[in-house]
């Protein structure tokens, strides 16, 4: 996905958003809940493009909503990268 990496302030907002709001379903420690775990081990074998599409467009038929009204493609790319390598704490 194209676009520049989010700036430092926005990165902090994204860390907060993922831990707290994605955390509603995936757990604040991202170990899963109603949604699947988002730990590096859980995501290891999944293609990056698919993960980005899931965040951006959601997954119809599941509880995963599309985040495109909240996040840009570049932000989704940044989040997925961080998830795959171990998501930083706030």
């Amino acid at each position, binding site marked *: 996905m194209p676009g520049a990496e989010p700036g430092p302030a926005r990165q902090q907002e994204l860390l*907060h958003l993922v831990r*707290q*709001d994605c*955390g*509603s*379903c995936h*757990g*604040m*420690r991202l*170990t*899963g*809940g*109603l949604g699947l775990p988002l730990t590096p081990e859980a995501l290891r074998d999944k293609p990056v493009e698919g993960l980005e599409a899931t965040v951006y467009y*959601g997954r119809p*038929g599941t*509880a995963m*909503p*599309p*985040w495109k*009204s*909240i996040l840009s493609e570049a932000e989704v790319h940044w989040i997925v990268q961080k998830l795959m390598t171990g998501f930083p704490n706030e």
Partner: protein
Amino acid sequence: MKTLTAVLVLSLFFLSGCAPAPALRSDDGRAAPPRGTGDLGVVIERASGRVAIVDTTARSVLGRVDGLGDLSHASVVFSRDSRYAYVFGRDGGLTKVDLLLMRIDKRVMQAGNSIGGAISQDGRLVVAQNYQPGGIKVFDSATLELLSEVPTGSKVVGLADLPGQRFGYALFDAGEIWITDLADPRQPRTQKFAAGRQPYDGLATPDGRHYLAGLFGEDGISLLDTWRLDQGTRRILDNYGRGEEKLPVFKMPHLRGWAVAGNRAYLPAIGRHEVLVVDTTTWREVGRVAVKGQPVFVMARPDGRQIWVNFAFPDNGWVQVIDTLGGQVEKTLEPGKAILHMEFTPRGEEVWLSARDDNAVSVYDTASFTRKATLPAESPSGIFFTSRAHRIGF
């Protein structure tokens, strides 16, 4: 030497992370007078794995208890004597917290991934509802000894106690409502009913007669009359979205018996900025109230005159109050950043609101809507008062 002792005591205090028990000891070490627990409660400090024990009369934090694990989605039920809080953590931890001694009484790891629990009619059984492995587990409320379990092969949501040592719950993946009878807690007897696609939560009405499962995968609510299980489930609020595309749901709503005010139930619409109103004698829709966002908690004040509503991200800075007489929003508040939860004092003259991103809990007067107090709390989420101990379905 005195200074050294003081330093030592202070370091121990900070290392332990728990406040001493001011309710039981005065500064000079003498026993404090006994006190009741009817005006106590707990606030989940979710990022810190800790609960704050609060006093709703003094509007104060009495102390904190930590070491409770992952409290991402923690919920709490209270012992019948209202002395103990059972805290269910996301990581499967079940912790029995002594509100008077302000310490952990017992703690077990009972599952890999958990969502909440309930306590039986007689207060002797605590039941946990789990996502992984999917099912419910039954514990002795005194000892936390595991008595039995009911595997479901599906994530369990909406566990609620029912009269007759029974529990109702719904299966997210399997689309069913199960009623488990624990008259013999080591030999659970379960009946299963079709509910609909993806139940996301459930509730028991305040009299414990009806169990409702809200559906995520389709527009509607599944209703079971637990006095007439032979009749099975029926659908209410069917197709309330009228075929319109629903908005993205960034947070699932939560259902409990607080939905009911008088002979009406006020229920969150999924993917719509609406509260749906149902007559609980006919179970027909009798109205809708337009609100500011997608409702998460739709909670009746104990007297039923007001309904307080908070909202999913990104509208979670707002709270609205519906006047049940007029059937419309009478007040819109901005109590803070990321309002996650609300809890009424036992008779509803005040409501406590957790503002996660302000690291604060605010106390509002429900008649004048004025703020009476603000208490510091680290990333607060759920607020639970001991008055729940004596309500069916809580």
